[in-house]
C-alpha cells in the first residue's frame, strides 16, 4: 500500500574518490522513511532446504500477494495464476532478484512454479545438490525495487537446524554453511 518506487543505485566507485565522497554526503541525508504503519510490514520469507528424497535443493519464497502483484501486473483482474504468462512473470522476477552462489558461480535455479494462498504468494525453485561443507552466498533483493523498507528473512534449514539472515535494501551477499550431512 506504499507507493511503488523504482530504485536507483548510487554505487561507490573505488577508482574515483570524489564520487565516493559525494555518495557519503548524499547518504547523510538519506534517512529511510519509517513507514511502518499501524498494520503494515513489508516482509518476505525464503526457506532453503535439502530434500533428502529427491536429492534437490528446494527454495520456497513467501511474499505478500498485495506487495508483489502490483509490482508485476498492471491488470491483476485476470488472475495471473491462471495464465502461463502470469506464472512465467512471477518466475522471471524471482529469478532475477534471488541468487545463490557457490565457489563464485551462481547455482542454476530451476523454476517449479508459483501459487497464491491466502494473502501470500509461494514461489518455488529447485537447485541441484550442493556439495557438503561448501559455503553458499545468498543475495536476496525480492521486492526491494518496490519498497525500500522491505525486509526478507532467509532460513536455511538442514538437519532440523535453522540458520537465518536478514536482507534489507542495499545488502550484499550473505553466507551460509551448507552442511546437510553434519552427523
Amino acid at each position, binding site marked *: *500500500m506504499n*507507493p511503488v*518506487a523504482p*530504485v*536507483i*543505485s*548510487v*554505487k561507490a566507485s573505488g577508482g574515483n574518490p570524489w564520487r565516493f565522497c559525494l555518495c557519503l554526503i*548524499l*547518504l547523510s*541525508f*538519506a*534517512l*529511510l*522513511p*519509517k*513507514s*511502518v*504503519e*499501524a*498494520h*503494515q*510490514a513489508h*516482509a518476505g520469507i525464503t*526457506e532453503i532446504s535439502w*530434500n533428502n*528424497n*529427491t536429492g534437490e535443493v*528446494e527454495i*520456497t519464497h513467501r511474499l505478500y*500477494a*498485495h506487495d508483489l*502483484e*502490483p509490482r508485476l*501486473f*498492471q*491488470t*491483476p483482474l485476470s488472475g495471473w495464476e491462471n495464465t*502461463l504468462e502470469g506464472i512465467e512473470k512471477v518466475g*522471471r522476477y524471482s529469478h532475477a532478484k534471488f541468487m545463490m552462489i557457490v565457489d563464485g558461480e551462481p547455482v542454476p535455479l*530451476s*523454476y*517449479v*512454479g508459483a501459487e*497464491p494462498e*491466502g*494473502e*501470500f504468494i*509461494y514461489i*518455488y525453485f*529447485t537447485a541441484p545438490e550442493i556439495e557438503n561443507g561448501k559455503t553458499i552466498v545468498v543475495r536476496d533483493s525480492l521486492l526491494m525495487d518496490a519498497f*525500500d523498507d522491505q525486509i526478507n*528473512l532467509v*532460513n536455511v534449514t538442514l538437519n*532440523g537446524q535453522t*540458520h*537465518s539472515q536478514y536482507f534489507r*535494501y*542495499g*545488502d550484499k551477499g550473505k553466507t551460509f554453511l551448507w552442511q546437510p550431512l553434519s552427523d
Partner: protein
Amino acid sequence: MQRIIGAIALFSVISTPVFADPISQTKGSFQDKFRQLEDEDWPTPNGVRSATGAPGSQYWQQQADYKIKITLDEGKRHLSGSSEISYTNNSPESLPYLWVQLDQNRFRKDSLGELSATTGSSDKISYRAARRAMVMKSFKGGYDILGVTDANGKALPYTVVDTLMRIDLPAPLKAGGKTRFKIDYAYNIVDAKIVGGRGGYECFTKKDEDGNCIFEISQWYPRISVFSDYEGWHNKAFLGRGEFTLEFGSYDVEITVPADLVVASTGDLMNPEEVMSAEQRQRFDKARTAKSPVFIVTPAEAAAAEKKKVKGTKTWKFHADDVRDFAWAASRKFIWDSMGVNLNLEGSPDTIMAMSFYPKEAEPLWSAYSTKAVAHTVAVYSKFTTPYPWPKAISVNGPVGGMEYPMITFNGPRPVKDDDGNLTYSRRTKYGLISVIIHEIGHAFFPMTVNSDERQWTWMDEGLNTFTQYLAEREWEEDYPSRRGEPKNITNYMKSQFQVPIMTNSESILQFGNNAYGKPATALAILRETILGRELFDKAFATYANRWRFKRPTPYDFFRTMEEVSGVDLDWFWRGWFYSTDHVDISIDKVVKGTINTQNPDVEADYLIERDKTEPASLTVARNADIEKWADRDPSVLDFYNKNGKHAVSDGQRKKYKKSLKDMEPWQKDILSTKENFYFLTFSNKGGLVMPILLELSYADGTRENINLPAEVWKNNPKKITTRVMSEKELISVTVDPRWQTADVDVENNTYPRRIIPSRLEVFKGRKTRKNLMQKMEKAVNRDSLVTHKAKKSKKGKKDE
C-alpha cells in the same frame, strides 16, 4: 579507532547476560518451564492493580478535557490554532510540572526520530528515500509554539525536549486538583506520500488528475502525556514507530476549513445545519435505518465539488466523550456513505453510524466494501471484547496505509489504473482492503477503549487486535484469506534465529510484523482453540476487555486476568510464547509395546517360543545343516535337556503358580489376565517451547483415537519424556499434532513410524501433475529456462484428472 570500537563491542557482549535474578539454577542444566511469573517478572499487586488482573479498589487515572479551535490553510498546507486543556490530577501525587507530547516535532530535521534513523544500505539510496531526503531538507517541520498561558492568560514557562514539552506550574498541582492552560500553536502538514507518518496530505496533481488534496490530520494538537501509577510521567520520546498511549477526556473541537471541504472527524457533529445541506441531512437520517450504505455526498456531488473551488470558510463543530485522542480528515473530493448498526448491547449507543469517506480514485471498491466492513467489525468485536462505545465509526481513504484513532481510521488500498486506462483490482487488493479496515476499526477496541501503552508494549494492542481481526475475518466469509492467526503461517518466523521475545519494547523489535502482530495473534488463537477451548478463552478475553474498558492495563493485568477467569495456570504459556524465543517442535522418538507377564509358566513359555521364532535363525546353523555332527553319529550324548527345550515348563513351576494364584487378591488376578497392551511413547522437545502433546493413535483394526496430553507432561523434564498409553488394540502408528494446530515447525518428526512428509514444493509439484495449466495449453519449458515451447505430444493420450 576501529580497535577501540571492537573492544567496546566485545565488552558489551560479555556484560549483557548478567541479570540480577536472586533465584538461579547453578547445578546441572534443568530449566523450569513452569516456574511462576508472579513476583518474578510480574509486579507485586497493589491497590491500583489487583492480583486478579482487575483494576484495584484504588485505581486512578488522570483526565484531560480539550477545547480546540483549529484552522486549515489549504493552500499553504498549514494548521494553526489553540488548545485549552483542563487537567484533573486524580493521582495521589502532587505535580510541580506537566509534560505535553509534541508529536509533530518528530518531523523536525534535528529530531531524535530523524537523527536515529539508519539506512539499510551502506552505498545505495532508493528513489523514494532520496526524494524524502530532498523534501525534508526544505520542509520546515515541527510545532511553532506561539504561547503557553494559564487560565488567567499569564504566560507559563515551558521547555521543549524533542517530542515533549514540560510546562512548569506556578504552584504544584495537588492530588485531586484541577488546572487549566492554553497552548497556541501552528505547524506545516507533511506530504504523507513522501515523508510518511500517520497523517498528512495527499494531492492529486499528476496529469489528468483534478489537483485537489486529501488531508488526514492526526497527532495535530499538543496532547497531555500520560501520568500513570506504574511509570509516572510517560516521557519516552516518539521515534516514529512506538505509537501512543493517552489520557481519556472529552473534546470540543471547532475545525475551520474552506467552505467546500467535507470533514470526517472523531465526535458527534454539533452543527450539521451549518455545514450540511438539507438534502444531505435527510439522507443521513435515512442511513440510520438503512440495510446497506446510503450516499450522504454522492459521487456526482463530489465530482462537481472537485471542479470548482468555493470562496470562504466553514467551521465544523464536534463533541466527543470518553476518547483518548481526536483525529479528522477533510477534502472536497470526498464521497460519503453511511449506514446504521444496531447492536442492542448495554454499553453501546442504540445506533452506531458506520461511515466511509473516499475519493473517486478509491472506487468502485470503497462503496462496495468499506462501510460494510466497518459495520461488521463493530459487531464482531463487540461480541468478543467489549461493546463499541461511540456513536460512529469511520473509514477514510487517503495517503495513510492504515492508522487508527477513536471513531476514525485512515485506510490506504485503492484499485489501480493500467496503461490503457482500464480500472482493475485483484482478489488480494479487495481482501487487503477489507482486512485493513477490520484491523484499523478493530483498534477502536484495542487500544482506543482498552487503553494499553503501545509506546512500551506494541503487542498489547497490535497483537490482541490482530487476533480479534482474525476472528472477524473468519466471520466475514468462509475461507477468508487471513494472513495472520493460522498456526502454520508463523512457523518460518518462529524457527528463525533473528528474533526477540514478544515482551520487548516497541523500538527494539526485530521483524515488527511477525513479532508484535503475527506471533501474539497466533499464540492467542492457539490458546483459544487448543489450550483453553473457546468457552474458557472467550469468557476470559471478554472479561479482560470489559475490566479495562476506558482504563489502562499492563501486560501483567492481561496475563493475570486470563488465568484467573479461565482457572488455568498459564505461566508456562506466557513464558514460552511471550517471554522466550523458543519455538514448537515436538518429536515422537520411540514407541515400545509392553504386555503383562501373566506369571503362568505355560503361557509365558509359549510367548517366549513365539518370540524366538520371530528372530532369524543363525546363519552358521543354517549353512551347517548338511554337515554330520557328533550327536548324529553318537546319540548317547543327547539327554533330558535335549528332549525339553530351553523354555520347557516343569511341574514344580506349575504348582508354584497355582499356589500363588490362591494367595492373590482379585484385582491382582485381573491384572495378570488382562488383554491390554501398554505402549510407552517417548517424545523429545526440540524447539524448547513446552506445549500440550496432541496425539492421534491409529490401530490395526482401522480405528483412530485422539489423546491430548497437557503441557504439564514436561514439568519434570522439558526436553524428553515418556508417557504410557493402554489399549487392547494393536497400535500401528502415532501422529503428533495431526491438525497442525500448535505451530510445530518440523512435522517430519511428528509421526511414528516415520512417514515422509512431502515438502510444500513437492505437494505443489504433485498437484501440478493432476491439473497442469502448461499441459492443458500444450506448452512446456526446459529445466534451465522459463521460455515455453510447444509440448511434444505423447502417443498415448493420458487422462488429465
